[in-house]
């Protein structure tokens, strides 16, 4: 609970920082503030305080605290990169940073809600922040398109979710998650309940860009400024998934066989379509968008063993998001003055900037699921658990997709190590090195000691 208040306060501080002429120091102060909040969240986690506040609107359990810590960590990385990205727009930097912090507030609300209205507030706070950010490069027509497209599609999805919440309210007469969990355990439920849950699921699948609700993702990812794409593909996706998982776990849907079958189909489709489309992309951001779609398919596997997959989901999101942040640190630093994100921009990076090339290579290897990187254990745990749940078909589809994914991840690696560099070596600001190296370092660390993360939810 304190987490949410602290984050909102930090956001307000960022907004008014401009008045006190703190622009130059804004990013460091925000990072310090976020680190403090991260520390206090971890403290709350360690003393296992189960606080329920505001008439049971917010309920911070281990699940909420653990995921909130991940979100705060990711936001720290994203804010750290803001300073260089917005150095041309010094006057607006406080707005941009404030929006990112408010986005985090929405994210935290989305995993610590105890009431569906709070949940919806979280979604909207997060989404509105993202709509603004997606269109934030005002003079770039692609960014405008991305913002508009994301807004239209996103509000449509929000509508679905809201309608679903209404139907659930209509069934049980309450927004309270605990009561809903209790009531939904009953055998005979009104048909409204299933319809409501389906609508919410569809809305959330849209937010995580799972097939067949993925069409917006490539365009928006490509059009939005790179830092925003990084936010969407790491933070926003992970948040949406964590809250979908929490919702579904609370709804007592299992063991409804139809629902599981649908999840199986969507999971396999997301993995396959995402990967096959990614093979054909020349634009790195589009490629990462499609790769994100396929990762959504992998994460959906956790829903199949929803009773005890929270630890695996947390681990997967950690692995995926850290690798994503590291990859985007390189992508942003390489393409920031280029005007496009074509693969050819990475030609010869292995020669001109070996460290950045190594960071990108390692993050791609992690996404592909090669050992010692966290991506390996993430996938492996998923596979083991899904086999235990009896869905060997999904696992085999996942394996085949892991092989396909190597095809496009290696396109980038090949470009970096076998092509001749086109441009002169350019200086890279220190912050990208720091973000890339720290993120991939954390990734490897949790790859070597996976228990650190996956035991958080025990």
């Amino acid at each position, binding site marked *: 609970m304190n987490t949410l208040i602290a984050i909102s306060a930090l956001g307000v501080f960022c907004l008014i920082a401009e008045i006190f002429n703190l622009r130059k120091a804004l990013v460091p102060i925000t990072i310090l503030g976020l680190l403090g909040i991260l520390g206090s969240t971890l403290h709350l986690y360690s003393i296992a305080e189960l606080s329920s506040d505001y008439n049971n609107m917010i309920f911070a359990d281990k699940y909420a605290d653990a995921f909130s810590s991940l979100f705060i960590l990711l936001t720290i990385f994203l804010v750290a990169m803001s300073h260089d990205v917005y150095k041309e727009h010094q006057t607006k930097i406080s707005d941009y940073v404030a929006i990112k912090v408010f986005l985090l507030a929405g994210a935290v609300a989305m995993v610590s809600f105890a009431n569906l209205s709070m949940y919806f507030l979280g979604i909207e706070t997060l989404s509105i922040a993202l709509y603004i950010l997606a269109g934030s490069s005002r003079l770039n027509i692609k960014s405008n398109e991305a913002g508009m497209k994301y807004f239209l599609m996103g509000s449509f999805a929000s509508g679905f979710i809201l309608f679903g919440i209404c139907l659930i309210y209509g069934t049980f007469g309450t927004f309270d998650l605990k009561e809903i969990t209790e009531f939904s355990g009953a055998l005979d439920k009104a048909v409204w309940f299933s319809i409501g849950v389906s609508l919410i699921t569809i809305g959330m699948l849209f937010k995580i860009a799972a097939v067949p609700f993925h069409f917006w993702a490539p365009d928006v990812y490509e059009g939005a400024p790179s830092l925003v794409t990084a936010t969407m593909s790491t933070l926003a996706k992970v948040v949406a998934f964590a809250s979908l998982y929490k919702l579904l776990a609370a709804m007592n849907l299992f063991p409804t066989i139809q629902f599981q079958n649908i999840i199986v189909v969507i999971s396999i489709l997301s993995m396959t379509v995402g990967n096959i489309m990614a093979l054909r992309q020349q634009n790195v951001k589009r490629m990462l968008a499609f790769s994100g779609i396929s990762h959504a398919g992998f994460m959906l596997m956790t829903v199949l063993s929803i009773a005890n997959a929270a*630890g695996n989901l947390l681990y997967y999101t950690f692995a995926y998001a850290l690798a994503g942040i590291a990859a985007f640190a390189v992508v942003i630093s390489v393409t920031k003055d280029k005007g496009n994100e074509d693969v050819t921009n990475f030609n010869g990076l292995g020669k001109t900037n070996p460290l950045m090339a190594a960071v990108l290579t390692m993050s791609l290897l992690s996404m592909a699921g090669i050992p010692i990187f966290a991506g*390996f254990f993430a996938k492996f745990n998923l596979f083991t658990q899904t*086999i235990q749940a009896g869905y060997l078909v999904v696992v085999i589809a996942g394996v085949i997709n892991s092989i396909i994914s190597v095809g496009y991840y290696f396109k980038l690696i090949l470009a970096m190590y076998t092509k001749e560099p086109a441009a002169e070596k350019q200086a890279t600001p220190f912050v990208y090195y720091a973000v890339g190296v720290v993120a991939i370092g954390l990734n490897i660390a949790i790859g070597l000691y996976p228990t650190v993360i996956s035991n958080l939810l025990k």
Partner: protein
Amino acid sequence: MNVSLILIILLIGALATFLSGDKFASKVALLFSLAALGCASVLVNHFLGGIDISLNNPWILQPNVSFALKADGLSLAMVLLTASLTPIIIFSGFGNHFEKSKNFYALVLFMAFAMTGTFLAADGLLYYIFWELALIPIYFIALVWGNGDAEERKKAVVKFFIYTLGGSLFMLVAFAYLYTKAGSFLLTDLTKLNLSATEQTWIFFAFFLAYAIKIPIIPFHTWQAKVYQKAPTIGTMLLSGIMLKMGLYSVIRWQLPIAPLAAKTYMPILIGLSIAGVIYGSIVALRQKDLKKLLAYSSLAHVGLIAAGCYTLTADGLSGAVSQMIAHGFVIVGLFFAAEVIFRRFGTYKIDELGGIRTQASKFTSMFMILVLASVALPGTFNFVGEFTVLYSLSQVNIWFAVLGGTTIILGAYYMLKMFQNVMLGETNTKVFADVTTSEAIVFVILIAFLLFYGLYPKPIVDLVSPSIKEILTQINRFN
């Protein structure tokens, strides 16, 4: 003292090489690989003295994974193979100049680290991690330092990577399934499982996919020749000398003991495929115009025979296979080095453009000749011991397998001697061929001395390996 020491030496060696800078990289790498060899010999001594050098620490609790390294005769034989070939391979590179050599030699040592780990791991998941880890360095070695057209090289190397990764992922699924049954990945637990025949079949073939690609067994061999040709010779040596032994070793260590029923049921098919590889490899090798490709196909033929020996499930077959793995490791490294020596002087691997070397370089010719003869299993070389034992075990299963497998010696003699004739004999080439330098000669002499010594006195290796072979056979026969 336990076996993790050798892993630590190699890992620190890789790091030190990377930090030492381009100038000293090769020497630092050689130093550490020699230290690893020393460590390996001490370990073998300890093992023979009855000291427990295994290691089992819990690593991850959920899923239950241990950092378990087990050293028995079989593992140690393979570790010795790796540890003795690595310095030779590194030393053989002294005549070459590699750009960014610190990265290059660090990758070589890292690969040796991963391969040694594969040979030692006694926990399925740990084993899988080492197995995959070995793939990354060789990918970069072949990609960045390889020769020939960049586009073609890229295609070959990516195909190799995706192919091997694809195979191993199915092995990973098999491990995941086994874990749900046994609750641990430890080899000792997995070999106690009472799996039904159907389960064993599925698991066997999931493993088979991984190993058949790595070894390679027909029809999964298509990546091999191109990669051998395009990789720098050091990479080719690592691949053919050590890495493909990972596949063969894993068959003996993991596949057969975990799913023996399937191995028995499908034995004719498995041996048949392996022997088809022998014949196919030999015939294709006959037609090759590129020296490295010819050696690649000869390697395909030889490992086919080794695989056949493994799948006979007899004591002779397994111990012959192990001997032949070691012998083949040494001889193929020597042959590829001979190709490299020629390349350093003539700048080509094309057999048509070679010839007339004998009259100019008598030392080189005699050493190359001995290696060729060892490769065709002339009695007196270690290869003879291995191939003969394997052929004998094949004859126990079915005499026709032995007859067909025996063609490896006849066809092998034919294509190897034909190659030798075209490359070394004939008209004196107008080009000048300087005889081997001292450092090149050292490499050849060590390899040849090893092959001849153990050819005449194979007892130490056989004695080292046979207790573990016996143990594995009891695991295989536990369903009878």
